């Protein structure tokens, strides 16, 4: 007896189709497995709208041209990226590309987990980037650039221009630390608030956001305990202590996000941050981020420093040494750093040679709205020295020691000189143990 299915198929036909379907699934699965074997991975910290959309679009473009080696980016919060990259390394499943910023490079180089892309792509690739990027700074070690620059950022004090106007202070006139303390006092009196923003809720943020004081007073970073520069270091701590009355108490529970929100919501009026801040805050504070309200000015200098200055650091992918698809990963690095892709990146400013504002606003996410900011950023870097961020090893632990002592100084439980003397042996031992 012939048994029929609902569509009049014979049993044999039904089984043949079933078998065919199963075979298709198996073959498809195998194809997927085959492609998974050559898939490129990255673990990054794209969080802001501009970062997420850039990575998504860039991945789409790469995948369109390279169906045999698709790139599958993974993202985590910026607080976790350093550890996440290392966790993958330790687990033996390294991403092909890691991600981070200048502060990470020294540690990762020391651990031997990254490779300089120029070893594979040569001088022509390196020449794509602005000279200051390839010649100095924490990403250049032994004359080689150890990262894949995506974003360059100049740093300064982002200020409420309208608050300064109200207090009768000229923004670009804040050229020394004394003038900074004086300006904070005037604004505090005019607005009856505590206007100086500083995230003191954890060691990493406290360390990173006070780092500029060290560079501004002739020191490399907060781990610079050169005995000849003791007075420089002590002056940094003294200045922070003098600024304490103008720091809101809530600063002691703030992380980076809270810090930048404090500015965006009008709680703090002066924060140290890179020029990527525009792209981070613009989507939620369009009315604030206009020339009338906000200005980025150079960092004021300490008495032993170079005077007003800006500094730079990079956000970068990193070519991981133990990448299992090195050749393809190098191709991806080349693709990511093509001029058209870097000009589309919408935080900070492009790390490429000779970019112009006209060129950038054409392809960046916020277009003409960002023109005034980019003009100010270029002006900032043309008027004052651009100092390089200098990395340090055992960064997290060093920052923790510094942070604990900084809090004591701010609480006036310790003098700046005593804090220096207490920190010096601890931090020196830490950097030495980590091979610094």
């Amino acid at each position: 007896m012939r048994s029929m299915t609902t569509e009049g198929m014979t049993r044999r036909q039904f089984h043949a189709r079933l078998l065919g379907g199963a075979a298709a699934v198996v073959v498809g699965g195998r194809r997927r497995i085959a492609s998974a074997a050559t898939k490129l991975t990255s673990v990054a910290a794209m969080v802001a709208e501009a970062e997420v959309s850039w990575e998504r679009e860039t991945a789409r473009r790469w995948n369109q041209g390279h169906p045999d080696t698709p790139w599958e980016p993974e993202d985590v919060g910026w607080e976790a990226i350093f550890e996440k990259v290392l966790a993958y390394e330790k687990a033996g499943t390294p991403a092909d590309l890691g991600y981070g910023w200048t502060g990470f490079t020294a540690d990762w180089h020391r651990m031997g987990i990254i490779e300089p892309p120029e070893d594979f792509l040569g001088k022509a690739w390196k020449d794509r980037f602005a000279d200051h990027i390839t010649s100095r700074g924490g990403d250049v070690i032994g004359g080689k650039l150890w990262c894949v620059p995506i974003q360059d950022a100049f740093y300064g004090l982002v200020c409420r221009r309208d608050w300064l106007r109200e207090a009768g202070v000229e923004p670009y006139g804040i050229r020394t630390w004394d003038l900074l303390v004086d300006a904070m006092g005037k604004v505090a009196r005019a607005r009856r608030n505590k206007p100086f923003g500083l995230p003191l809720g954890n060691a990493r943020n406290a360390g990173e956001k006070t780092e500029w004081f060290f560079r501004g007073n002739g020191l490399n970073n907060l781990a610079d305990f050169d005995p000849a520069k003791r007075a420089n270091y002590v002056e940094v701590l003294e200045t922070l202590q003098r600024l304490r009355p103008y720091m809101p108490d809530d600063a002691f529970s703030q992380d980076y996000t809270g810090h930048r929100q404090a500015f965006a919501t009008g709680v703090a009026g002066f924060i140290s941050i890179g020029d990527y801040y525009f792209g981070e805050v613009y989507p939620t504070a369009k009315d604030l981020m206009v020339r009338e309200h906000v200005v980025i000015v150079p960092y004021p200098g300490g008495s032993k420093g170079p005077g007003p200055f800006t500094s730079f650091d990079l956000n970068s992918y990193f070519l991981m040494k133990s990448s299992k698809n090195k050749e393809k990963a190098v191709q991806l690095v080349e693709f990511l750093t093509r001029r058209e892709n870097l000009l589309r990146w919408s935080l900070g400013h492009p790390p490429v040679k000779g970019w112009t504002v006209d060129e950038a606003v054409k392809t960046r996410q916020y277009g003409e709205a960002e023109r005034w900011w980019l003009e100010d950023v270029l002006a900032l870097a043309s008027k004052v020295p651009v100092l390089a961020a200098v990395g340090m090893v055992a960064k997290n632990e060093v920052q923790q020691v510094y942070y604990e002592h900084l809090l004591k100084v701010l609480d006036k439980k310790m003098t700046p000189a005593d804090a220096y003397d207490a920190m010096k042996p601890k931090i020196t031992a830490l950097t030495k143990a980590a091979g610094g």
Partner: protein
Amino acid sequence: MAGGASLMPAPAGPRDTDGSGGAVRSVARWGDTGRGYLYLAPVFAVLGLVVGWPLFEAARMSVHDVYLLSGRTQETFIGLENFRTFGRDANAPTYLLNTAIFVLGGMGGQFAVALLLAVLLSRRVTFAAFWRGLAIIPWAMPITVTALVWRWILNGQWGILNYVLYELGVVSEYVSWLSSQTWMWPSILIVNVWAGFPFMFVNLLSGLQGISPELYEAAQIDGAGPLRTFVRITLPLLRPVIAALLLLSTVVHLRDFATVWILTSGGPGIRSTTLSQLVYITSFRYFRMSYGAAIGIILMSFSLLFTVLYLRRVRFEV
């Protein structure tokens, strides 16, 4: 007894004619025991893999020097040096004190709130089921979500708590709940109590409902007031439940990481850093894997102590 795993001696059967019945039974019993262990083998394998091996690895690591920044492959045996280092750490008393505050404060707070609510809601009240359900809701929320929501509520600059208190005239200026010396621990403990009391509440409520109403009636006839009844009848009869809950809660609080981490990240400074956070920070922020393992072993020892007490109590009750 069903199956062949009975430990009772079986009578000699008709085939036991050559006097070798004992040996046969013994072999059979060993066979049964072996089969039993065979059935349990997957459990042992999984436990060994996910508990035993990591535990062994942590213990092994704690007596070595593993510092990722000095090279991932170097492991030098250093005996108990990591434990001595912790003992010499000037911050160690603060970490231990913070842990004690969190464990005792959290456990005590949760217990007090849970007992109060359990006593109130064990009576005949209108919409009892609704109130009981409401009390359990915090338990249904993942702790990460709870802590994040509370961090927003307690934010010193734009948190809703400050807004409400300021508008009501309770505070004259915004309070930094999560960084102030005065308010930091109370704030953390309030979040912990809010998130954790339902577990105790449910258990205490079920304990209360197991107490015979006749005892209360007898006490009433004897002229005992509510307080006396509570102290002389309710508390003694709840004692087994309370003891088990407090021991469990101690272990849970000792290993709790998320609440404090999400609220304060252990800061400002180390003012709210507990041992469980220190394990994470030391291992994964400072990359001192072996030192982190040693602190983990110290923390585990505390937990183990209370776990043993709990298990002994459970066995005793059984």
